């Protein structure tokens, strides 16, 4: 099975967000970056599919700055075979431009499966996977929490409000991974050592400006300091009174 996994370097979920003096971007000083958590599920799924098939190749593709090599190495340490970095210091604000660059990279190979995380935890776009699928004219299933593949037939489950949707689709296809799809492995020391020797191609790319422009990045409105109503079960009466009379939510 020939599988591509597209991953992104993002600030760690515990990172504090500080805004740059330009007022439009993240101040990256002191921020720890990591492989996007949803992409970990995608990498794990790719590895399991290859292992199950008994042969194949898992190729990790990322669009990002030079430092995204580390992100790709993390996936290689988990067991992926090789990596491709589409290197740019400027990730476009318009996700369609990102999708075009990734689709352009993927189009030259006949993949059986292309995996993404369902979203990146930095820009919350939820769309590069399905946009790439459309550009490559491949079927796509998003936010998948369970996946069965038999030959060229796939069945996926995804969570919707109030239930689980079961979808059928043919391979080759694009699938975006949700939490719950699998339990990603931690890279073992052996994997980390091996990853250093695996091929990582770097290709400079330049994104077009696109039709979206970030005009400002601001901190969210502060919540005003609340109050401690009291201690223990004795405070419940007063809490309920405040919720009814002051907050008016009961």
């Amino acid at each position: 099975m020939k599988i591509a996994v597209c991953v992104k370097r993002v600030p760690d979920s515990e990172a504090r967000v500080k805004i740059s003096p330009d007022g439009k971007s993240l101040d990256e000083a002191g921020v720890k970056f990591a492989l996007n958590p949803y992409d970990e599920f995608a990498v794990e799924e790719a590895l399991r599919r290859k292992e199950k098939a008994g042969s194949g190749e898992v190729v990790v593709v990322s669009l990002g700055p030079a430092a995204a090599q580390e992100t790709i190495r993390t996936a290689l340490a988990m067991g992926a075979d090789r990596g491709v970095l589409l290197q740019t210091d400027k990730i476009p604000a318009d996700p369609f431009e990102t999708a075009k660059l990734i689709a352009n990279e993927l189009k030259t190979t006949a993949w059986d499966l292309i995996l993404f995380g369902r979203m990146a935890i930095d820009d919350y776009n939820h769309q590069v996977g399905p946009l790439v699928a459309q550009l490559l004219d491949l079927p796509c299933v998003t936010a998948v929490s369970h996946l069965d593949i038999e030959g060229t037939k796939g069945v996926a489950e995804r969570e919707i409000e109030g239930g689980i949707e079961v979808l059928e689709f043919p391979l080759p296809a694009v699938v975006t991974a949700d939490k719950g799809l699998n339990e990603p492995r931690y890279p073992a020391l052996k994997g980390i050592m091996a990853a250093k020797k695996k091929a990582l191609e770097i290709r400079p790319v330049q994104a077009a400006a696109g039709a979206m422009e970030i005009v400002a990045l601001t901190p969210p409105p502060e919540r005003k300091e609340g109050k401690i109503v009291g201690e223990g079960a004795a405070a419940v009466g007063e809490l309920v009174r405040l919720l009814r009379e002051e907050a008016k939510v009961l």
Partner: protein
Amino acid sequence: MKTLAVLEQRDGKLRKVSFEIVTAARRLDGSVDAVVCDTTDREGCAATLADKAKAGGYGVVVFAATATGRDLAPRVAAKLGVGVASDLTDLTVEGGGDAIVATRPVYAGKALQKLRVTARPAVLSLRPNIFTPDQRAADVTPEALSVTASGRVKVREVKPAPAGTLDVAEAQVIISGGRGLKEPANFKVLEELAQAFGGRAAVGASRAVVDAGWRAHADQVGQTGKTVSPSLYIAVGISGAIQHLAGMRTSKVIVAINKDKDAPIFKVADYGVVGDLFEIVPKLTDEIRKLHG
């Protein structure tokens, strides 16, 4: 500038989020046409919507940022040669319709991004529970589009959640539990409190307890779970890690119940009660039952 609003139905009825997007769409200059479309054949539905958007010369196409909307919007957008300005919490029109200025939470709400969208059409998805439906919202009769094209991705079945359980993304009241619950079985005390709200409340969970396998991922609130904005969020035995706060800080009213008075959750809570949750929560359940009794 005409707007196409793609509404969502369940069991033949428009969902609440549909009225929210109608309300938001009417805030833009120009007229709004509302449509519904069967989403069983995903690609067929996307093709139908893209054809409708093209044929009608719409300047804006609006979706809800729900599980279905997030799946459908990029498929339609790509067919129209644009991306999606997704998960918006505010939008305005600039320069008499030259651009839409959209606000969207990024880094799970740790920052707000202002995005100038010049794409035509501008494809937008709006976050649920943000745009309060106005009085005219119910006054909408969507055109039911028939899906003619046959696609490759099809819904085989929908397994409904057990009766009486509400999705955290849709609930007006969320009671979330963390490690302070000590063991999975103790979530029963939160479920009882949720039931006392009479069908309006859902039980959520912190990442720690989801990762420990105590609760389903569908219930997780936070940066790698759901971002929620209920009227009332009650955090029980949750210390308040930054990734959790990111997912619930836009709740209208936040209550924290925790034994550690220095827990970060109290910094964002409107009302806090310090102490043993196993004494406090059952008492609260009694009081809420009395109110709804």
